[in-house]
């Protein structure tokens, strides 16, 4: 099919580069510089989709970001993207697109039956129709609605494209490159301000590309090109096309989406598909222009009805005719510009002007060109189903209430202009309270809230001369404040045609006996009658009307519908528009892809990965890793076909019988120095710290101010004023902040410094009855006997030339040591331990065995210190000093904390000594009790005891102190298990703690 609607000449497209593309399976041709929309229109294709609710045929309405209809499913480089606006998607060789929201095809859509059922689908139909019977929602209504409604289809494949984030700072950020954007950017740039100029379209210039004006003896387009090329040369200016500033957030931060590669058949190597810019600007200039308002009449959604400015843009930018027999329906002078462009290209348009007898330069020009104009005329209804074929027109009375005789005239498109709506989204998002400007029947920004200034059409200024004047001045003044430079720019001579006033008329009354749908919101199928129903039913607030009718809630966010909706509500309510107010403008201004929002933070980049210095050794020795916060820790070391259960049992057993080694680098480590360090620890921990001698470690528990246990760990006195604190892996960062809080804000008089040393030290726990023999081999020059290095002792030593710290501490409950060396030597230490441990049958053990060992010893960890337990609950009350005050102590006398049947940690063993107990299960008295069955406690941690070869769990149990020996039931509805159990002491193995001291 040839491009029968393409003009011989003209437009800004590259006619030397022909591109082929497919739409709904059929091949067409267009040119480089086309959008998918302009190329389809050039080929006479106007039917692109079906509407959301009634499945009525949908064509093109706009030529850019305001497009409510023409969304397609795009196929590019083996990937698919839903709801791409055909008016924004640039054509590339091999592009493929399909219609959305139609089945089986756009030409024959079964859902169109809704169009005839529309009396059943009024405003709020979801709320009314699908409520009863309740069970029908999931089984019948929802699946049906899902099939019928919705737009494109999201790909379920992994997105191979790359998206980037960028952070930028600038003096002036300018949104939009029309006349006001260019002028203000130019003036600011000349004052050496750092400027970012963003344009959402591929071409710079905005309205200058389509309007018939002259600036300094150049056409608008030539002037725009000259300014842009000058700006591009300047080192202080960043000029970005295909870049939409879509959100204005707090403290002058704006976010921009740059479509780097969407216009290309394939993303270039090392390029992202899209880039999200977070821009912090000192001043923001909003030059986002305005969007033409539709006029409302019967069947105004028929393909072929479109904005007159869009028709002009297709003509002037793409050399494409939207029709060969056009009707222009306008209430202002803008429609004339479109008609004149048609006429200049040999097409004879007819203008219907709702105004009585307007006079202006541009009307005179249209008359002189011989264009047929009918004043006081309106379109009553468009006729034709898949494309406009004629229009019912009529004279309208001066008060716009009465129609005359209906005439029918042939036409193939209706270009409508209901005047202009400033694009105030960004200003409104910044917090600016907008105000209604009577002369233009629209809202404009009021007083600036942040450092934003709105210029030109976005500010309701529709003459070029005034726009340029105010924009040069704004660029100059705002940049002068920042750079102190003051270059004056003289205003070039501007030639433009003067306009007359628009008609305060926007909705054509229904002719008698006709019940045409008159649409306000074209994407969500909201018509005049829907708003009327909503108001009849008592909805008053515009926010409620919006949600009830879904007016302005579609993906186009009501860019073309909001103001007409407000007009209607104010007419019915007999109020003025500002009294009705408008709905809130929220970011994003236009849909943003999820990929751009996520950026590079996907897969393994979604969070940082921390590895210990011994990581590669673990990898080489079949470690299976587990996430511990952002750390990767060996969970177990797999031998042969071992399961997790088998491996962890083997590793734990080896610790109990021989010796094991565990990578404990991930433990939080904090260096504490200063003359008041002991006093500080004494306030932080619940137990006494003032008398800890140098060379000794002590176990400590710290509370939050509300009395709940925050963390535990050992702290060692390295020298007089120097301590080494350890924290749990999970709480390391919180504990450091906690200490800093008290030192900086509460007790600034304490002379203490804290710093994290987690990453400075690599740690290995050597545990088991043979650990002392192994230690002796590692440190042959040290006395590591029970007297030389007693339990909780500390010495500094030398590991074959490497500085080492040795702590005699134990988490496993066995005779155990922890050796720390500087991180760089971690692997060396580890390999030495494995090498010299061979004769003692040393084996590495992972977190699973580590858990087994601590659980059967009754040592608490994160699953017991879960932010809900106090010292008593975890049997740590013996560490509470009665003689001193500490953080959280005052909370401990609260009634619930001191009650005699307070929960306490206990051990749990299944009566059959076989059934494993799921963690998180509840403990109950009677398994068969009626619901709700009273919960007495919960299982916090479970293991297979390697000491006794049966399952063992820890639990936090109400009145646990008096429950030892009781028989209860463990219930896990999730696992569908009921297990009879006996409550025992939490110290299941070595209750007297003899091994650690041996």
């Amino acid at each position, binding site marked *: 099919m040839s491009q029968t609607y393409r003009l011989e000449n003209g437009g800004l497209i590259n006619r030397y580069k022909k591109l082929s593309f497919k739409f709904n399976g059929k091949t067409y041709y267009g040119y480089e510089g086309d959008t998918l929309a302009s190329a389809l229109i050039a080929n006479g294709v106007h039917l692109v989709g079906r509407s959301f609710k009634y499945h009525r045929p949908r064509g093109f309405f706009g030529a850019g970001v305001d497009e409510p209809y023409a969304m397609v499913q795009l196929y590019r480089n083996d990937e698919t993207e839903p709801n791409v606006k055909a008016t924004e998607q640039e054509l590339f060789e091999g592009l493929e697109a399909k219609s959305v929201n139609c089945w089986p095809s756009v030409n024959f859509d079964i859902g169109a039956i809704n169009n005839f059922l529309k009396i059943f689908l009024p405003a709020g139909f979801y709320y009314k129709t699908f409520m009863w019977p309740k069970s029908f929602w999931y089984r019948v209504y929802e699946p049906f609605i899902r099939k019928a409604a919705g737009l494109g289809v999201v790909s379920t494949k992994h997105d191979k494209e790359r998206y980037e984030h960028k952070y930028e700072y600038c003096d002036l950020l300018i949104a939009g490159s029309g006349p006001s954007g260019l002028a203000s950017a130019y003036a600011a740039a000349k004052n050496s301000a750092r400027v970012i100029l963003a344009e959402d379209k591929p071409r710079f210039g905005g309205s200058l590309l389509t309007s018939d004006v002259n600036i300094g003896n150049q056409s608008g387009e030539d002037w725009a090109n000259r300014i842009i090329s000058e700006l591009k040369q300047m080192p202080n200016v960043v000029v970005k096309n295909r870049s939409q500033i879509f959100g204005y*957030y*707090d*403290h002058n931060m704006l976010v921009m989406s740059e479509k780097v590669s969407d216009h290309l058949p394939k993303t270039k190597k090392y390029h992202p598909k899209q880039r999200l810019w977070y821009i912090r600007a000192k001043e923001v200039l909003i030059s986002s222009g305005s969007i033409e308002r539709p006029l409302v009449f019967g069947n105004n959604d028929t393909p072929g009805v479109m904005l007159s400015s869009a028709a002009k843009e297709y003509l002037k930018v793409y050399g494409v005719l939207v029709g060969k027999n056009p009707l222009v329906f306008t209430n202002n002078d803008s429609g004339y510009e479109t008609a004149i462009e048609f006429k200049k290209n040999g097409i004879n348009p007819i203008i219907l002007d709702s105004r009585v007898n307007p006079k202006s330069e541009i009307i005179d020009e249209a008359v002189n060109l011989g264009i047929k104009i009918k004043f006081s005329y309106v379109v009553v209804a468009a006729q034709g189903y898949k494309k406009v074929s004629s229009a019912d027109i009529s004279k309208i009375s001066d008060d716009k209430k009465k129609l005359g005789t209906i005439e029918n005239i042939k036409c193939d498109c209706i270009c409508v202009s209901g005047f202009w709506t400033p694009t105030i989204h960004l200003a409104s998002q910044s917090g600016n309270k907008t105000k209604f400007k009577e002369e233009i029947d629209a809202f404009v920004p009021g007083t600036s809230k942040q450092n934003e200034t709105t210029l030109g059409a976005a500010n309701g200024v529709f003459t070029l001369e005034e726009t340029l004047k105010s924009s040069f001045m704004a660029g100059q003044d705002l940049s002068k404040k920042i750079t102190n430079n003051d270059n004056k720019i003289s205003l070039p001579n501007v030639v433009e045609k003067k306009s007359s006033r628009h008609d305060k008329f926007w909705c054509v009354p229904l002719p008698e006996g006709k019940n045409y749908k008159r649409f306000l919101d074209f994407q969500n199928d909201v018509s005049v009658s829907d708003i009327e129903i909503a108001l009849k039913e008592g909805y008053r607030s515009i926010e409620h009307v919006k949600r009830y009718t879904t007016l302005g809630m579609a993906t186009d966010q009501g860019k073309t519908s909001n103001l007409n909706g407000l007009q209607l509500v104010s007419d019915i309510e007999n109020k003025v528009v500002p009294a009705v107010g408008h709905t809130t403008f929220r970011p994003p201004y236009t849909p943003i892809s999820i990929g751009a929002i996520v950026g590079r933070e996907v897969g393994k980049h979604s969070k940082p990965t921390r590895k210990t210095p011994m990581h590669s050794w673990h990898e080489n020795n079949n470690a299976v890793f587990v996430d511990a916060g952002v750390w990767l820790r060996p969970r177990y070391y797999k031998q042969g076909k071992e399961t997790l259960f088998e491996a962890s049992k083997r590793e734990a057993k080896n610790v109990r019988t021989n010796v094991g080694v565990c990578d404990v680098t991930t433990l939080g480590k904090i260096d504490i120095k200063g003359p008041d360090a002991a006093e500080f620890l004494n306030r932080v921990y619940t137990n006494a710290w003032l008398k800890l001698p140098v060379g000794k470690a002590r176990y400590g528990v710290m509370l939050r101010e509300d009395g709940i246990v925050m963390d535990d760990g050992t702290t060692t006195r390295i020298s007089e004023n120097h301590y080494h604190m350890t924290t749990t892996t999970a709480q390391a960062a919180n504990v450091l*902040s906690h200490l*800093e809080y008290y030192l*900086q804000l509460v007790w600034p008089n304490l002379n203490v410094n804290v710093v994290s040393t987690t990453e400075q030290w690599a740690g290995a726990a050597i545990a088991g009855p043979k650990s002392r023999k192994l230690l002796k081999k590692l440190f042959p020059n040290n006395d590591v006997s029970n007297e030389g290095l007693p339990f909780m002792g500390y010495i500094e030593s030398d590991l074959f030339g490497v500085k080492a710290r040795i702590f005699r501490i134990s988490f496993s409950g066995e005779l155990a040591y922890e050796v720390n060396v500087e991180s760089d030597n971690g692997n060396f230490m580890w390999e030495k331990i494995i090498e010299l441990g061979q004769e003692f049958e040393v084996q590495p053990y992972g977190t699973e065995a580590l858990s087994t060992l601590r659980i059967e010893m009754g040592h608490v960890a994160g699953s017991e210190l879960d932010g809900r337990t106090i010292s008593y609950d975890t049997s740590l009350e013996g560490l509470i000093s009665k003689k001193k005050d500490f953080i959280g102590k005052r909370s401990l006398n609260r009634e619930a904390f001191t009650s005699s049947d307070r929960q306490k940690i206990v051990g749990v063993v299944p009566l059959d000594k076989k059934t494993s107990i799921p963690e998180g299960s509840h403990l109950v008295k009677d398994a068969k009790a009626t619901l709700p069955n009273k919960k007495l406690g919960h299982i916090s941690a479970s293991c297979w005891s390697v000491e006794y070869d049966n399952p063992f769990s820890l639990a936090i149990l109400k009145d646990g102190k008096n429950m030892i020996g009781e028989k209860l039931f463990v219930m896990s509805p999730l696992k569908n298990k009921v297990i009879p159990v006996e409550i025992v002491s939490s110290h299941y193995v070595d209750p007297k703690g003899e091994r650690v001291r041996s």
Partner: protein
Amino acid sequence: MLHIKCPHCGMRSQNEFSYGGDASVKRPELNKEITDEEWDNFVYNRKSLRGKHLELWQHLSGCRQWIKVERDTATHEIFNTYKAEEEIS
């Protein structure tokens, strides 16, 4: 995202900071006899002010200093920031 002036480092993005609540709360002195009500006021009871609020932030991914920020809780306007030890008139 807020833009907060750390009195030690200068203007930084909010994502470098963590929030620390009402800065006017004073911890009761150690070893001092106080009523349950005074203690509850320190631990739990906070005014949820609309408007000007003096609050604590920590420059976590920066100098790690706790600072005081005078911020409007409704508009996010930041009027001033102070070092932890600075007296605020």
